[in-house]
């Protein structure tokens, strides 16, 4: 009987306002791929950050090689043979590929960094997954495209020669061919006796790679399998309820109204010849790989990274905005994907966050608690209606859970009654239970006549919540599907290749 490479027992972890993990246990044996599945916000990343020493646990134990360890710094985890490929990139954009791969452990000779050896070694590691030809070790990371950056991120972990490698959704930005190379690499590592923890919510990858599967939901172990069960079983464990109820009912033809937004042959340095229409009352999902241009499109409509060519009309009026303020005035709202970086003002109160846009569009000397769009009382009422749960709305928003924060941002836009609302990754980092709330909220808004553009990397979410699905690839719109299309068809359009194993 081989002993597990790592074992996590009864892990508990809280953050202000959220209990992220409740007594979760998990283990990985040498030479196996243990898939860790779960919806966004289920606690997968938190669990792995505890394993890698980024977070300290509140309760439980981490056992590595039969020995209980308390990592207080990631260095200790790395020394113990644990490498992590993080979901959000942990690359330094201003440094070279080789420097990033060997961050903090550059090869040295006589105490000095051996740049030659470092570049050679980087090239060797990159060659493992056939990327040596397209990624030069001395290129600055900022100059790479997203997929290449993801490969560098993977190379960084692989080069550690670790006993345990954690891969947190490594394929999010990769096309099929690149995915296949990665899968091959996983097989190789496995043969070498490396224990691999593979985090994903794509069933295809689980079927292809995994030996065992653990499903997390709401910070708890929802299910654990010593084999790879049917995808349906896993999905049920992940979602924990009937899908039909999870997403709101689609729009009826009567509910779909006039054209709100029409884009014709628009483009900029990231987007090519985009044409489509959005109608009042419908939710349109935008699917595609990371870096396919979905976010760029949203930002272009919103005036943040404007179109440089083509025509855009909002409710029949020209609407090629060059800054968000003009777009907002005209009735466009945008909920950013990275709430913390682009949406929230964390040190301010819930109510201040809700009133931000209303205040921004009012006179600067106007009363802060009585803007023409909403007064403080009206905002409180709105927040109540959206069921934002907080001790008090004058409390700092940073203590709230992701779902409540997201609803506060929705409130921000509702105060302005926009014609078009753009949701980017609307449920990222939100509890499963709260997700349903967000989907129903989007549908309610649509029913009231708002056009909704939803950009999401969570394919099931796009399939479940949208009335129509548009697929982007390399800055272009490549396909349009009605509701009910299969995941495989969308992936096919998104990658532009034949599916190898669907």
């Amino acid at each position: 009987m081989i002993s597990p490479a790592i074992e996590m027992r009864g892990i508990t972890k809280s953050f202000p306002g959220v209990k992220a993990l409740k007594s979760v246990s998990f283990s990985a044996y040498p030479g196996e791929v243990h898939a860790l599945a779960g919806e966004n916000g289920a606690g997968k990343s938190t669990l792995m950050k505890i394993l890698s020493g980024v977070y300290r646990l509140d309760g439980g134990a981490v056992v590595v090689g039969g020995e209980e360890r308390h990592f207080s710094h990631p260095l200790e985890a790395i020394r113990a043979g644990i490498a992590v490929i993080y979901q959000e990139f942990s690359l330094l954009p201003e440094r070279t590929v080789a420097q990033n791969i060997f961050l903090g452990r550059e090869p040295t000779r006589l105490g000095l960094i051996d740049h030659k050896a470092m570049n050679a070694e980087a090239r060797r590691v990159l060659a493992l997954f056939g990327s040596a030809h397209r990624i030069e070790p001395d290129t600055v990371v900022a100059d790479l495209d997203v997929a290449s950056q993801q490969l560098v991120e993977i190379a960084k972990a692989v080069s550690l020669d670790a006993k345990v490698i954690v891969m947190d959704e490594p394929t999010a930005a990769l096309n099929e061919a690149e995915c296949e190379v990665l899968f091959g690499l996983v097989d190789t590592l496995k043969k070498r006796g490396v224990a691999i923890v593979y985090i994903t919510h794509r069933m295809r990858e689980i079927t292809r790679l995994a030996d065992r599967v653990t499903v997390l939901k709401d910070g708890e172990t929802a299910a654990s399998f010593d084999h790879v069960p049917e995808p349906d079983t896993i999905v049920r464990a992940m979602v924990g309820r009937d899908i039909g109820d999870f997403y709101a009912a689609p729009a009826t033809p009567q509910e779909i109204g006039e054209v709100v937004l029409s884009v014709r042959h628009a483009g900029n340095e990231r987007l090519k010849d985009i044409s489509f229409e959005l109608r009042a009352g419908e939710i349109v999902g935008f699917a595609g790989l990371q870096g396919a241009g979905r976010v760029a499109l949203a930002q272009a409509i919103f005036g943040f990274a404007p179109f440089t060519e083509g025509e855009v009309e909002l409710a029949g009026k020209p609407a090629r905005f060059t800054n968000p303020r003009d777009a907002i005035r005209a009735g466009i709202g945008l909920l950013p994907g990275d709430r913390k970086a682009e949406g929230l003002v964390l040190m301010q109160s819930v109510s201040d966050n809700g009133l931000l846009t209303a205040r921004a569009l009012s006179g600067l000397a106007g009363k802060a608690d009585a803007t023409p769009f909403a007064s403080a009382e009206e905002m409180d009422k709105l927040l109540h209606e959206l069921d934002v749960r907080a001790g008090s709305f004058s409390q700092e928003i940073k203590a709230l859970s992701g779902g409540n924060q997201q609803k506060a941002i929705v409130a921000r836009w509702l105060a302005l009654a926009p014609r078009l609302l753009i949701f980017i990754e609307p449920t990222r980092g939100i509890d499963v239970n709260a997700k349903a709330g967000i989907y129903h909220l989007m549908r309610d808004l649509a029913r009231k006549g708002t056009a909704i553009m939803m950009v999401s990397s969570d394919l099931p979410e796009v399939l479940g919540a949208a009335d129509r699905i548009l697929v982007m690839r390399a800055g272009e719109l490549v396909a349009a599907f009605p509701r009910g299309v299969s995941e495989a068809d969308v992936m096919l359009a998104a990658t532009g290749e034949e599916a190898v194993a669907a």
Partner: protein
Amino acid sequence: MIQETVGSAKAPGAARGGRLPKINPVFFVLAALLVAITLSNPNFVEPTGYMNFLKRAAPLAILAAGQIYVIVSGGFDLSVGSVITLTVVGSSVLLNNNADATWWVIPVMYAVGLAVGVVNGLVVSYLRVPSLIATLGMMITLNGAAFMWSSGSPRGYLPETFRFFGRTNIQGIPLIQFLPVALLVLIVVGLCLFWLMHRTNLGRLLHAIGDNPRAAQMSGVPLERVRIIAFVISSLSAVTAGILLGGFAGVSTDVGVGYELQAITACVIGGAQLLGGRGSVPASIAGALTLTAIFTLLNFIGLPKPVRDVVQGVILIVAVVLATYRRNRAGGT
């Protein structure tokens, strides 16, 4: 500048509740200092005692109340000291010993302050020069400009009409006997700045851009306009402080030296978050009074100046450490 977000998520279990009483500790510190001053010098409770104190503190308090606008918006304004110098030296040149010129010289100085603030704001917003460097450059430039304007030394006296604001006491007021005009100016300016910061959209938007400029921009906040206004308010408050200082002490060439750091110190003692997002006008004024009270107390106890430097340094650091500690205890990163 250095903010560890992932690493410092220590978040003890009881992070949820435990909200501290809302009163800013600077007010307790100030009260304690005033008691200590009174103990070391019982005359302090006489009107001449505390009124002189308030009169003396008024310029710094006004400066801090202006500086907090820039700090809340996420920047620094190092140019305020040189604006003070420019105001005093420039006024002496423009007044040219003519008492009747006061009525137009003061508006002219405010116009100069306005221009300085606008330039600071434009350089930071559009040339994207960090405010630390932008206002440092402005500081050096204005000091040179003040001297160039006056060829090295002020050209005229400041007549009593000009010095009225900083020097005169209104006599014969019941209960307090007299009221320095400077204190009146502080009250009026303080109330205006309080209202603007804590009751208007501008104030909330300042907090927002200091907290997260990207989020503010994505929410439609006119970043540039708000930022420029912050610098303008800071510059105008510096002109006001300059008028009071010129009035209090007469003409000299290096009036403003060191005031920029004192103003920032006052704001920090008042609990302001450097790099933006948090700060209050009354607390900054209290911070300025605290700083002045410390100096006064050290004077009364007879401690030499070197000790005052050390004390100021220690207080500055302790204030920030305590604020960080309180914030960490209150939860969050």
